[in-house]
């Protein structure tokens, strides 16, 4: 039953959830960037090995993955109730909860909460990237300073992150040194590219920001419904500084980031660091519940962001993408990501998870660049194996391709697929089609076809195609020669 005024599907999200080019177009330039290829290859190989070791040493790793998946399934099945409990607990402990249906609303709410502050410090947060908060604040004359080292690098370069966990994975230390010398106020002009010295330069610069900032803005890795507790997991201590020093703290959290019970952290605080940085434990885990007089921020605001999550939740199959805990293990094992990097995906969320999340959060109708994302995968399955909450990304990609074809199949392709299905639907037609394919021999030299017209030009651009053989298998099978050869094999046996 549909009620008047009740939209059948909740609205899609807005903000930085799509690029301006389709994936193949955006990938083209990145593939040709040899520096990027080298950086990505080196970084992903290193993290892959660390993750495998960190996951492999736990005897109950598979059970942990099952538990993580089960808890997330439970969260999505009870999301409205859990959110209400969460809001109640946060409020009871002195926090204020705000609800943001989309990116624009979240930006408005956060800007309104700043109360005249001209500078804010930020903890690395995917959600604030998603809504384009920094750009929004800038247009309102407010400076937002990223305090995570890699995010700082990206921000100083006027760049966008290309990896969930390692936003500056596309930059090497020589590039970073040049950037600091150019864009970091007060930097030592003799700075070299030793990573420790680069980090020290950033630390000196950031320390002044931490001391001066009135307001901090963070994301959240987890929100605990039962207690109203929020959690940020990080490596550098910049998060701890932001969460404890400024007078006012504003946290933006996607509504799917809930966990029902405090005890559920036991599972996720094992899964997340081992999957993301390949560490047994991340250096800093901060938890806070509302406000505590005399300790930490005096004012705490929680902005809960929908931005297409309800629309994603409405899809019975696609909703499992909301299990994601943003560990980025799927990026590091993805052979496509390893070659193209994150920018080719257009959205804040790159890699395999981005390819299933962005089209669902923001839609993929018509000529939307997001419609190319479900096809940006060879379906090799490495992402599914690596996912700590067992999101079956290959199956989701196939499902989204199905949805896209049902809504807007490319006409030429649909005709080919229909013709192929018709030819294969019946063996007589199939044999005729095989005979037609056999004509491909006319295009071959020395057994190989070296050039074909579109759409197969994509193949012969870089690879030869073997010429179809003179005899199909079924023709061989029907021949006396086949019977003779198989009789001889049977006679020979293993002896």
């Amino acid at each position, binding site marked *: 039953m549909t009620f008047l005024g009740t939209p059948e599907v909740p609205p899609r999200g807005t903000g930085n959830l799509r690029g301006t080019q389709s994936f193949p177009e955006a990938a083209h330039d990145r593939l040709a960037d040899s520096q990027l290829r080298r950086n990505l290859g080196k970084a992903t190989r290193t993290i892959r090995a660390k993750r495998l070791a960190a996951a492999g040493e736990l005897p109950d790793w598979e059970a942990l993955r099952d538990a993580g998946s089960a808890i997330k399934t439970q969260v999505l099945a009870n999301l409205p109730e859990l959110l209400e409990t969460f809001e109640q607990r946060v409020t009871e402990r002195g926090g204020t909860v705000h609800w943001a249906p989309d990116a624009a609303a979240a930006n408005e709410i956060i800007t309104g909460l700043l109360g005249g502050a001209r500078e804010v410090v930020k903890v690395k947060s995917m959600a604030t990237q998603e809504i384009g908060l920094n750009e929004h604040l800038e247009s309102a004359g407010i400076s937002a300073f990223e305090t995570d080292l890699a995010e700082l690098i990206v921000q100083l370069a006027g760049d966008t992150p290309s990896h969930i966990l390692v936003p500056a994975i596309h930059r090497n230390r020589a590039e970073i040194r040049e950037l600091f010398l150019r864009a970091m106020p007060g930097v030592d002009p003799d700075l070299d590219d030793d990573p420790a010295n680069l980090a020290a330069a950033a630390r000196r610069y950031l320390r002044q920001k931490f001391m001066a900032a009135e307001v901090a803005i963070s994301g959240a890795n987890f929100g605990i419904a039962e207690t109203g507790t929020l959690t940020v997991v990080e490596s550098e201590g910049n998060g701890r500084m932001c969460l404890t020093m400024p007078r006012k703290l504003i946290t933006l959290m996607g509504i799917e980031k809930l966990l029902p019970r405090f005890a559920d952290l036991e599972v996720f605080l094992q899964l997340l660091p081992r999957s993301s940085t390949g560490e047994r434990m991340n250096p800093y885990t901060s938890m806070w519940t509302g406000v505590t007089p005399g300790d930490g921020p005096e004012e705490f605001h929680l902005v809960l962001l929908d931005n297409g999550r309800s629309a994603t939740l409405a899809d019975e199959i696609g909703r499992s993408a909301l299990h994601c805990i943003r560990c980025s293990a799927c990026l590091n094992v993805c052979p496509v990501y390893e070659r193209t990097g994150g920018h080719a995906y257009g959205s804040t969320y790159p890699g395999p998870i981005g390819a299933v999340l962005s089209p669902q959060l923001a839609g993929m109708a018509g000529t939307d660049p997001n419609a190319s994302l479900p*096809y*940006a995968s060879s379906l090799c399955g490495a992402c599914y194996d690596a996912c700590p909450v067992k999101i079956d990304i290959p199956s989701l990609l196939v499902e989204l*391709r*199905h949805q896209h074809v049902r809504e807007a199949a490319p006409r030429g*392709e649909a005709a080919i697929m229909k013709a192929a299905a018709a030819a294969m639907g*019946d063996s007589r037609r199939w044999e005729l089609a095989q005979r037609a394919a056999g004509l491909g021999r006319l295009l071959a030299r020395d057994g190989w076809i070296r050039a074909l017209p579109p759409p197969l030009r994509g193949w012969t651009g870089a690879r030869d195609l*073997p010429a179809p053989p003179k005899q199909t*298998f079924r023709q061989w099978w029907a021949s006396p020669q086949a019977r003779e050869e198989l009789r001889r094999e049977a006679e020979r046996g293993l002896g």
Partner: protein
Amino acid sequence: MRVALFATCLGDTMFPGAVAATAKVLARLGHEIVFPTTQTCCGQMHVNTGYQREARGLVERFVEDFADPSIEAVVVPSGSCVGSVRHQHEIVARRYCDTATWERVHATAAKTYELCEFLVDVLGVSDVGAYFPHRVTYHPTCHSLRMLRVGEKPLRLLRNVREIELVELPEAESCCGFGGTFAVKNAETSTAMLADKMRHVLDTRAEFCAAGDSSCLMHIGGGLSRLSTGVGTVHIAEILAATESREVTR
């Protein structure tokens, strides 16, 4: 055992040698082989490109050809097509077929095996009396590896081949970049993946790159041919079918 052969559309049309080799290995092991001639394709290309509705007829075709209870097992020289039968047919059937078909889909998928799985798991054989005096490197194809979990089974079979010189492929488990229509839709990314796979194959100085999927071999082999590397590809079934008296001819 009464074993039906599913040739796959690609094997039937483009790589009959690999399918014939599968039949020969099964015949050598004393099994009765049937080839339902009405068979065509598992529908994987359609499903993976988004055309599940169009794949419905192919799923029904497969069940029609192989559900027959007198067929004890369906053997396929492709990990990818078995992956499709096992994981995708049910999805298509649930969405587009009636309940009776869905049940038959389930039962047929349960007796469908990739060749190496069938030899090692079902028949308990790891030496098929093969002879292949060549330097070979083995690429575990993604769907064999991660959908079917064939693991070490193909290597166990290969290690028992007389005179073979098996060399380990570096970064063996990474995808060659084929991915069906991915190779055409994202041709440049696919090529970048292929370039790394070829580099690793060439690093082994093998004469042949072997695998259990003709599609991936078509991709790797097409690249190796374009660059005139002189390195060939061979389906694992062709290695297992080769004997002293009858070497693989190519």
